């Protein structure tokens, strides 16, 4: 796959694209941190792949994910579960993405960044619920950028009880 690194100065298009990608993630994490869950699936294409996977599975080539969706519909079903069928204690999640590494390829834009998710349960100290790296692929889709693929590989394999909200 031929890639064009986007961090060469003086390329206006690159800078504009990087700004768009940044704006995309600002909006993405903003929606999740504010628990506007119904907006979440729209950040993805209809035929997307979403995986939240323990590092040990990822490195050993195992298919199994902690959360997996093969379509925007499955992401919507995740939201339905969170809003209508699942039972969990109230909590806040806050996501801290690290610096973006953006490269453009023939099949879209590759974006990689670290992600720290901090969870705070009522009456408890905050703790790290997820620490990992996101391997994303974004494409132009109906006038906006959307995620065609998002693979969140997390180091924090012993999850502090439950992983409720998405990464």
């Amino acid at each position, binding site marked *: 796959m031929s890639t064009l690194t986007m961090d060469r100065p003086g390329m206006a298009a690159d800078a504009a694209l990087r700004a768009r990608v940044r704006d995309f993630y600002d909006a993405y994490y903003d929606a999740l941190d504010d628990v506007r869950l119904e907006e979440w699936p729209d950040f993805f294409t209809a035929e997307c792949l979403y995986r*939240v*996977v*323990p590092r*040990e*599975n990822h490195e*050993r080539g*195992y*298919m*199994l*994910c*902690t*959360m*997996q*969706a*093969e*379509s*925007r*519909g*499955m992401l*919507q*079903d995740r939201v*339905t*579960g969170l809003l*209508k*069928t*699942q*039972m*969990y*204690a109230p909590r806040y999640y806050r996501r801290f993405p690290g610096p973006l590494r953006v490269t453009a390829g023939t099949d879209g834009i590759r974006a990689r960044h670290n992600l720290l998710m901090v969870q705070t349960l009522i009456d408890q100290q905050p703790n790290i619920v997820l620490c990992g790296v996101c391997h994303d692929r974004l494409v132009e889709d109906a006038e906006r950028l959307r995620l065609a693929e998002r693979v969140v590989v997390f180091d924090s*394999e*012993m*999850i*502090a*009880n*439950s*992983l*409720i909200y998405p990464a």
Partner: protein
Amino acid sequence: MSTASSPASRDVTQQDRPAPKRWTGDGTSQVPYWVYSDEETYRRELERIWYGPHWLYCALEAEIPKVGDFKTTILGEKPVIVVRSAEDEISVVENRCAHRGVKFCQSRSGHTKDLLCPYHQWAYDLRGELIGVPFRRGVRRQGGMPADFDTAKHGLRRLRVEVVNGVVWATFSDDTPPFREYLGEKFWKHYTRVYDGRKLEVLGYNRQHIPGNWKLMMENIKDPYHAGLLHVFFVTFGLFRADQKSAVDIDETGRHGILISRKGAQEVNDVTADMRNFQGDLKLADPRILDVVNEFPGDETVGMITIFPSVILQQQVNSLTTRQIVPTGAGGFDFHWTHWCYADDTPEMKLRRTRQANLFGPAGFVSADDGEVIEMCQQGFAASPDAEALVTMGGHDIAPTDHMVTETAIRGMYRYWREVMGL
């Protein structure tokens, strides 16, 4: 807690410890909350249950296919190494150097020729026999081990092992009966329905720490009453419901149990009227998660087995897992999920199993409910050790039933628990 007069070198025995609290009532229809929180009770559980005459789940054989392949795990609170020591032999040894007690193997899994402690380079073969002690005869005639030092007496502690239809079991005790006898004939049948001798393959792992007593996880899978109420996803989509043809079976001792059920349809009826949060009109946007194939003999689509004390063997539609329990004190346990498939599954079947895995694990549509509710149980128990849990659904009997409105399997487990604990 050793007494002041006891020599420091002696192992602390149960006699030296304060007695656990006494269970004063009869039967097991009321379970005092201190069984979930009392540290002395937990210490006795480690000695009499985890290190006593019980088989503990270690691994799937498929995790260590080649000689020299190993994985580490924890049985009770003791770290062990599970290693294929010969073509047709699996050894389970304590992950604790015989010299200074180092937990020397820190990898989760790998491949090795021998077992080496980095501290002083003591080396053991794959069966745990001591094969190398550097400077054993000293250096230039100085120092070294005493003349009577016998390497044969300083190997790693080996556990008894049985490999049964692709699953590795180990026990610390010489008194544990053979595995099949430990299950009993009825549960041997339940076990071999899914673990039928076909080769297994690992799909991947999930791990979570649940801040609740380890017995609550056993109880959860011995309690079909909650499954049709707490798990709205199950009920809504007909995967597990109180009005479906079901059964609870327990072995003669009461320690092992199985919940058996069969899938129905999404429907509204007099049973769902009892559920305040039933979502009768809920639709999935992408229902492929419910694409279920009948693959086992008979009409049953669910078989959830609890093998006391260490593991849950899950068959729920096409999702197959072992869920290993590792206690970490009275108030918590680590929960290790190994999702697997049959080695000869089609790629389509493997995908189906991983898709249905969204129901399970720490982010599962269903299983996340369980982790959450177990934590909430522990929060409720902690401050009221002398209050009691009611376990009277289905009466006071301890017997197999052909419905799921019962807590009989929980009563059965505590009857056995009281016997083995002497409480």
